[in-house]
């Protein structure tokens, strides 16, 4: 190799020139001018001029600038090359780096790689990097399952490729494999996001990429002109509020003697007809007390500079999201980033560093069953949540319903239980690239992602004596977890042209190390108020009979992997393109007999428009790719596991393999009429060897609960369309729009078990999830009972003469109609058991995203619409409200015509269905959401100069809205809801309910509702 280093010094010459904009003829500063196939290059200065030495007159220079068409020019002996750059209508000449051997123009891609640029991200900077993808790319589903401030949405690319595991794609940030999600990544720093969906495209990433890959590249100083310093100051301020609340019952059916007011602790008798139509004399909708608009702000400063050999970019961001819950401090995040590159030895060596640090502090609001959000909607609404406690005069009287000891005033709970999460994260990438020649370079890099998470969950000993709550003596919970992910990468890139053939080869090695370590502690009996260290707790209680145990818990994981891969690509005259790769992964997560797995891809494309000239079509390309990618088993999956006291958990599996997704993708890219850019993809993926935790019968299963096996296959079909158009370009008036569409279907094709049940259920017992999977099912089907509505549902033993339709259309017992016992009845199966059948499907019919930008002079209007058609949601929140004190507005019989009134038992004993899954609570989860809306005015440099301001390059003033508006038939807070991976610990891998998928498990169970945010922003660029 060292020999290669020394042969490339011949015939050096210097090229210089001026780059201008074709649109207005003005000089373009900051245009990248790079010697093709290398990292050597320069940028134009503030006057659009550049100068660069190149090795030979055969060298090719590549000129690129965001928003303009990348242009390649062969030097051909010239020393002055001036260039007018055209605006990139089609965006076809963009460069992508994800999923391919080396940076590749989109024109020459044989696979589908999605890309979102800064210009789409910066309009309404997302609260985190995941939200930035919402509704902007076909086949990308971003679900904000729990809308709490600081929560990170779940991302799914194309179809589900795992059942037991997560659908989370592999995330790479500036070359570092992210081990801790995207919630701490600020989107102001992002330059581009590249998305590789499906196994054919993501094969390069082997056993980590079955769910696809998201590659985030942050801003560097390399886009600036040499000598330029850029300072960006951005401030955004506004507030958040809850768009809508759940309807609450304003009536009750308690018998209250004349002259008395309702007191639940005294009036324990219901009215004769048991109809809830007695209006509360005092009515408080506690949602209006608990949900309280909160403020929101972001401050961001970025400073970047470029000199001849060095560039850097430093930024800091400070973000505060109060959220919408009263008394909660919400989420505060501070981030800092430094990106720097240095070129040495005439640009042959590039040393590159990226460092990121973030700290997020969150005031956690517990959600789910039994949480404050649960009590909030099931307490009888005739109380004053602000009343003081008689015990000690403290605010927020804890007991609002003596009949329900488990429900306490949510304000009391929030005020007196303090849960604080602190998450510190640092990501570092250090890399060096050496270009031996213009066709061979070697890159080595070390990346590291550290996260330190800690939680303090404190109830002081002033907590009032609530029955059954050990917290009366105070309770201290502590938890810390550290995650360290390290990667070491070596890549050798070669590219050569042989006549009409261009070829590229990449050989790579990737080593991964991952350590996770967590421990937790819970103790009671705080001796002195305010002293919360474990030392300050007493184990022996005031009563000598009582010991307050300290409970310790811990969990640790080590994962290691080494991966080798090779990618080869070639094209003939830029017309016929092929690409092949092979990858061999070794992972400690695979069973000991299956430590290595192979992945591969073969893909090709034909640029028809290079062979045939078609009227009004600038570019037409057909693609086909077949490739494999996989998912690794969760850490615990391969091990035989007992509890330390001899309990039986799981049999071991030394033959446990990766899950593998084999995808065939066909694609079409076209640019036409000088303004439209179309991409269509159709992909079929067969995912095999799905890793599943299969339940064992407790009796004859030897005591083990489950075994983990490669036990299933799934087939998915994906159809995606993206269309971007520059609809109008007339002088300073511009209107462009983009629409993305996807339709995804997945079906089980094989299962080595008669069934699996997945996902959430009200009592979270293992194997009882609402989602039922058999060999013939669609993944996402909800199963449960159905209420009788038609005589055809009756079994032969059920005499039709005994049944009659009631005013709601349910078939009820004739003998009960109009009585307190009238209630819907569940259909039975032939053995007389409640019929268990399909009641819903969470898969949408299709998704459409729409974005548009209209600009006129400095004024611009930008919006993103997100339409999800179909896809059911299970409204468990409503189901539970039907039981407890009958608080749901549906049960409010005041104002209902007498003949339609139903007694409380109709809901509590009938529709509630003992909290078991039933068709009644399956609702259409379609939505149309206005995700982002921004109106902004930009003062550019010339305007500012005219105003006599020279030191400012640009001022932008904007009014922004996030999640401003929603249309949906859904009756809860928001149909964008799920209980999935965010609700379950990473370590809970013993059952299929572990990972889960927010896009599948559409289940409304007392989640923190998504909220909308209105802000104003001011961005000044110096």
């Amino acid at each position: 190799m060292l020999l290669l280093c020394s042969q490339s010094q011949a015939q050096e010459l210097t090229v210089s020139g001026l780059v201008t904009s074709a649109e207005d003829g003005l000089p373009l500063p900051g245009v990248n001018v790079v010697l093709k196939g290398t990292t050597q290059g320069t940028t134009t200065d503030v006057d659009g001029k550049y100068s660069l030495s190149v090795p030979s007159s055969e060298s090719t220079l590549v000129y690129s600038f965001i928003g303009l068409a990348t242009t390649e020019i062969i030097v051909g002996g010239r020393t002055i090359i001036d260039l007018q750059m055209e605006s990139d209508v089609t965006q076809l000449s963009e460069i992508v780096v994800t999923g391919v051997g080396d940076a590749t123009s989109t024109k020459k891609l044989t696979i589908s790689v999605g890309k979102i640029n800064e210009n789409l991200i910066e309009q309404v900077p997302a609260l985190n990097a995941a939200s930035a993808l919402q509704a902007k790319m076909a086949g990308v589903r971003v679900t904000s399952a729990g809308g709490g401030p600081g929560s990170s949405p779940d991302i799914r690319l194309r179809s589900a490729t795992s059942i037991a595991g997560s659908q989370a794609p592999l995330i790479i940030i500036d070359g570092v494999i992210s081990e801790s999600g995207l919630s701490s990544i600020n989107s102001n720093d992002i330059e581009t996001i590249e998305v590789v969906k499906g196994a054919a495209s993501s094969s390069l990433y082997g056993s980590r990429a079955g769910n696809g890959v998201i590659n985030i590249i942050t801003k560097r100083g390399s886009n600036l002109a040499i000598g330029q310093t850029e300072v960006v100051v951005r401030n955004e301020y506004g507030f958040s509020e809850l768009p809508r609340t759940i309807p609450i019952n304003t009536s009750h059916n308690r018998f209250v003697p004349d002259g008395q007011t309702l007191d639940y602790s005294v009036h324990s008798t219901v009215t004769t007809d048991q109809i809830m139509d007695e209006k509360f004399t005092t009515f408080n909708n506690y949602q209006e007390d608990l949900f309280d608009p909160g403020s929101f702000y972001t401050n961001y400063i970025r400073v970047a500079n470029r000199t001849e050999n060095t560039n850097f970019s430093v930024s800091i961001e400070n973000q505060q999201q109060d959220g919408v819950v009263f008394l909660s401090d919400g989420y505060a995040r501070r981030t800092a980033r430094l990106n720097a590159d240095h070129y040495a030895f005439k640009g042959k060596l590039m040393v590159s560093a990226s460092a990121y640090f973030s700290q997020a502090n969150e005031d956690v609001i517990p959600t789910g069953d039994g949480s404050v959000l649960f009590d909030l909607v099931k307490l009888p609404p005739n109380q004053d949540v602000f009343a003081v406690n008689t015990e000690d005069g403290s605010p927020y009287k804890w007991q609002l319903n003596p009949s329900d000891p488990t429900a306490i005033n949510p304000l009391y709970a929030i005020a007196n239980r303090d849960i604080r999460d602190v998450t510190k994260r640092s990501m570092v990438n250090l890399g060096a690239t050496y270009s031996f020649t213009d066709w061979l370079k070697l890159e080595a890099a070390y990346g590291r992602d550290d996260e330190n998470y800690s939680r303090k969950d404190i109830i002081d000993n002033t907590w009032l004596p609530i029955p059954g709550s050990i917290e009366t003596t105070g309770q201290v919970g502590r938890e810390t977890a550290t995650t360290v992910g390290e990667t070491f990468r070596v890549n050798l890139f070669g590219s050569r042209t042989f006549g009409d053939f261009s070829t590229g080869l990449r050989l790579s090695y990737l080593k991964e190390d991952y350590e996770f370590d967590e421990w937790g502690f819970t103790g009671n009996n705080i001796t002195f108020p305010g002293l919360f260290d474990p030392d300050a707790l007493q184990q022996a209680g005031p009563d000598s009979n009582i010991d307050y145990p300290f409970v310790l818990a811990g969990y640790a994981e080590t994962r290691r992997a080494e991966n080798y891969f090779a990618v080869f690509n070639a094209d003939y005259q830029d017309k016929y393109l092929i690409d092949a790769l092979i990858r061999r992964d070794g992972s400690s997560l695979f069973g000991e007999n299956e430590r290595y797995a192979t992945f591969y891809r073969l893909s090709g494309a034909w640029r028809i428009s290079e062979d045939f000239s078609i009227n009004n079509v600038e570019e037409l390309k057909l693609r086909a790719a077949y490739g494999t990618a996989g998912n690794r088993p969760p850490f615990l999956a391969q091990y035989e596991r007992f509890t330390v006291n001899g309990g039986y958990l799981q049999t071991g599996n030394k033959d446990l393999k990766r899950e593998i997704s084999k995808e065939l993708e066909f694609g079409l890219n076209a640019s036409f009429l000088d303004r439209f850019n179309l991409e269509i993809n159709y992909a079929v993926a067969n995912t095999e060897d799905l890793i599943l935790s299969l339940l064992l019968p407790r009796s004859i299963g030897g005591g083990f609960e489950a075994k983990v096996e490669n036990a299933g296959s799934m087939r998915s079909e994906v159809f995606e369309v993206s269309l971007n158009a520059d609809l109008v370009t007339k002088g300073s008036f511009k209107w462009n729009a983009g629409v993305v569409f996807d339709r995804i279907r997945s079906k089980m094709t094989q299962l080595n078990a008669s069934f699996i049940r997945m996902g959430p259920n009200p009592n979270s017992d293992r194997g009882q999830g609402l989602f039922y999977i058999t060999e013939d099912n669609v993944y996402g089907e909800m199963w449960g009972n159905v209420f009788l509505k038609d005589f055809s549902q009756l079994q032969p033993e059920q005499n039709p003469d005994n049944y009659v339709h009631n005013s709601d259309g349910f078939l009820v017992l004739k003998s009960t109609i109009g009585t307190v016992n009238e209630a819907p009845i569940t259909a039975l199966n032939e053995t007389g058991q409640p019929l268990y059948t399909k009641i819903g499907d969470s898969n949408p019919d299709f998704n459409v995203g729409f974005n548009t930008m209209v600009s006129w002079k400095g004024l611009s209007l930008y919006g993103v619409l997100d339409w999800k058609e179909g896809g059911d949601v299970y409204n468990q929140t409503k189901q539970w409200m039907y039981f407890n004190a009958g608080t749901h507005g549906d049960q409010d019989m005041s104002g209902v015509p007498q003949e339609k009134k139903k007694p409380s038992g109709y809901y509590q004993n009938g529709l509630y269905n003992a909290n078991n899954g039933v068709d009644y609570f399956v609702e259409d989860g379609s939505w149309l959401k206005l995700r982002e809306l921004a109106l902004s005015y930009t003062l550019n440099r010339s305007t500012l100069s005219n105003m006599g301001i020279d030191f400012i390059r640009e001022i932008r003033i904007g009014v922004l809205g996030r999640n401003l508006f929603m249309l949906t038939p859904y009756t809860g807070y928001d149909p964008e809801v799920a209980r999935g991976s965010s609700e379950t610990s990473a370590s809970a891998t013993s059952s299929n309910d572990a990972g889960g998928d927010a896009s599948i498990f559409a289940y409304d169970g007392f989640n923190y509702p998504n909220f909308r945010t209105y802000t104003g922003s001011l961005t000044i660029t110096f």
Partner: protein
Amino acid sequence: MKTKNKLSACFVLSLVFTMMACADLEVENPNNPDFNQVLGDNNQLPGVVSGAWNTWYYLESGPGAMTLAAIADQLAGSMNNFNVNLYSSEPGGVRNGINNSPTAANNEVVNDGWDNAYSSIAGARDILRIISDPEERILSGSTDITEMVRANCLMLLGLNYGYLANLYDRTFMIDETIEDPTLMEFPLDQNYNEVLEFALSKLDAAIAIFNASTFSIPGGWLNTPNALTSAQLAAIANSYAARFIALNARTAAENAGTDWARVKSYAQKGITEDFIIVGTGFDTPWVHQYTIFGTLTGWGRVDQRIVSLFDPSQPSSYPLDGTTDLGPANTDDERINTDFEYIATQWANPERGYWHFSNYRYKRLDPNGSSYTGPHPFMRKAENDLMLAEAIIMTTGPDATAAGLINNTRVDRGQLAALTGSESKNVMLNHLFYERDIELLLTGSTISFGDIRRRDMMKPGSPLQMPVPGKELELLNQPIYTFPPAE
């Protein structure tokens, strides 16, 4: 310049080779032991015994016991945790039967007993299989404790199968002689008597070892206040054997056929003091959830049937007319003051039915505090006394001995007039069941359930036993059935 280039290339390359050490892909699981760690090392086996004891403790003290007591009209509550509300409601005068759907929510009463019994059985069985090889010995220091471990494992099999025999209609009888349980056929034609005999054979084998040796088991195995001796364990095993036989009958007719001589024989060798296990509180291995949910403010109360035993002028079921206070029970029994608390208002939600109303709560265990830590009677001496008394009455008729056994609590605690033994059989039995209903609350999980069904006193529609859990049947590819059976 060229040298520098070479140097920098060497720099990159040396970085590459330094970091490119081969990855070690063998990683241990630091969180859970595997079979070899747990059962491959005889030193670890006592830990497995302790775990199996703890699982059995859950069987008898888990929340499903609260549901059984509610079905047996001994406790009452309107919460639907553990389906207490569902299975003790009587719409139209008929109890809701068991929903044995594999997905039925809150079905601890069906699932937990089965799951815990087989989990406990698995540990005991595996150890018995290991030590069935005479070469395999278990040492504690230099002491050979193999026989002690064997006796404990046999006792665990006996206790778990006794529980299964009395609560479930069918059971897989798996012990160390079964080579591969996965090949076992579903016991379609089995009678629960067979399971009872299987359980008794295991208890007899354990008792034989206890009687032949002298040892004490570590206190931590069962979290008893003091280490239990082999003699104490023999007595406990005898008392449980007596309980299993006494409570196996599903109906009064079957009860008449119970082998009372055998009950007598076991009870005569039974416990002479309360069998105590110390509770350690919420979220710890020894937490008596049955007691917590049966007595905690806002949760369980004592069923009106028990109140009416104290005061026959009160109805045996709570009125369904909207009455909220029946007033204090009028009785001479002192226990109404020492063990029970009168509360004029209701905790139960009337919207969920008046069936769950009651004006009394059980307070005898209150000294243990709201987290139920401290010594808890797991089987009372009174139970053994009353089983012996019943066996005497049922075999040789009422006598002074039987009367004395009933008087132990009737007079000493209740301060009621002593029985003499000259009372009729029915009168004696009524007094005996009165004592059982009032004295044995919140001890064994199947006592009240067993007592009600063997007297044909279950409310219409109530299950007399539990089906094999639906989620187990589903995994065994068996049709789902339930109790009472679908019409």
